[in-house]
């Protein structure tokens, strides 16, 4: 395995882990603040699933990299420019409408991604994806139910869902963008061609939005940059809180 090939593999696995880590952390911010107790439990559990997935991906990336970094080191001791998550997951939660629409957009993508990744030639990735896809199916269902409930609810809830959709839509294109550095990984069947997931994703989202009496937003110019470390200001603020303890007390454990 060439150095370049190894680096590309590690980077793509870190991106999988970072998506889950950052969204898990975001969702966790709802804990104690969700509109109802049931939603509080749902969002906390959902965040927990994502953190669990992040742990598996980042630990594996660290092993593969072979520089002595484990999942914790990758999560707590990397600076914002080294994160490879997409911009969608780092956006502030906004209201519940915005949060749950984002969840639908992301979970539908993540489910399709993991279904394909479960067939990866990288057996470790395949088994993580096969495990995680079961959890993600639940996330997608929860989010879809709520988007329909809000969209097809009162005028107020409809407008909140609609605004949430409009806010999140500019970050969708990045989910399906293929990094040129991944070309070799695709040929080797190690990673998933995200581009191919767009059509089935459009169908899934189209059905849910139609049930929710919401329109697919008009095309917007997609905002990208997360996969190459060009993040919005929001990620830095999140990391300053998430990484505080390990920054202030390096290596602390209990």
């Amino acid at each position, binding site marked *: 395995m060439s150095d370049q090939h190894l680096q590309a593999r590690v980077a793509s696995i870190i991106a999988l882990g970072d998506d889950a880590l950052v969204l*898990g952390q975001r969702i966790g911010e709802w804990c104690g603040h969700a509109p109802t107790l*049931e*939603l509080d*439990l*749902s969002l*906390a*559990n*959902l965040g*927990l*699933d*994502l*953190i*669990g*997935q992040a*742990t*598996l991906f980042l630990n594996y990336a660290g092993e593969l990299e072979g520089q002595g970094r484990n999942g914790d080191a990758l999560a707590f001791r990397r600076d914002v420019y080294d994160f490879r998550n997409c911009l969608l997951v780092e956006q502030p939660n906004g209201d519940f409408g915005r949060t749950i629409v984002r969840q639908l957009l992301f979970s539908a993508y993540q489910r399709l991604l993991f279904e394909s990744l479960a067939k990866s030639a990288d*057996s470790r990735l*395949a*088994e*993580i994806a*096969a*495990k*995680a896809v*079961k*959890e993600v*199916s*639940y996330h997608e*269902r*929860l989010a879809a*139910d709520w988007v329909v409930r809000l969209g097809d609810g009162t005028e107020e809830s409809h407008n909140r869902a609609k605004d949430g959709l409009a806010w999140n839509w500019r970050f969708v294109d990045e989910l399906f963008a293929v990094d040129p550095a991944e070309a070799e990984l695709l040929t080797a069947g190690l990673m998933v061609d995200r581009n191919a997931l767009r059509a089935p994703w459009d169908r899934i989202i189209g059905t849910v939005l139609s049930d929710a009496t919401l329109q697919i937003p008009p095309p917007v110019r997609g905002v990208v940059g997360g996969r190459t470390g060009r993040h919005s200001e929001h990620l830095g603020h999140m990391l300053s809180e998430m990484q505080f303890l390990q920054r202030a007390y390096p290596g602390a454990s209990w």
Partner: protein
Amino acid sequence: MNAMVIDRADRIWAAIADVPDPEIPAITLLDLGVVRDVRVTSDGAGEILITPTYTGCPATIAIHAMVRTALDDAGLGDVQIRSILSPPWTTDWISDEGRAKLRAYGIAPPERGDGRGSLKEEGPAVCPQCNSSNTVEISRFGSTPCKALWKCQDCSEPFDRFKCI
């Protein structure tokens, strides 16, 4: 396989037989189906293969710690615990005895097989209190990752339902 190896494996299984699930202590880890195998390694010590229920389940750490304690208590301190992901845990692995214990504890056990992969078609839960199927989901996620919150329309009792995965 020689008799000594079988004896060793039996001892390991026996040592962990009563370890309860940390979140639902009414059932054991063996009922839950998370202990996938016990192997006697070439050095004669042995290892236990454990799979997590959910990737982020905080009980995973507690489970490993409890198994460790049970092994140590039985004088099997050299037995290793190994975490495996594949094949992924399914609620189909919960034993019949485990299902009966869950019901008695007030938790509706998961359906077998058919619930998996066709989550949308998951039917109503059977109330563990009065056996009615006239039930509704209150919350898809309950007090732990593995449970959803349901309510019986006949006896009005809320109850946990083991999610089918």
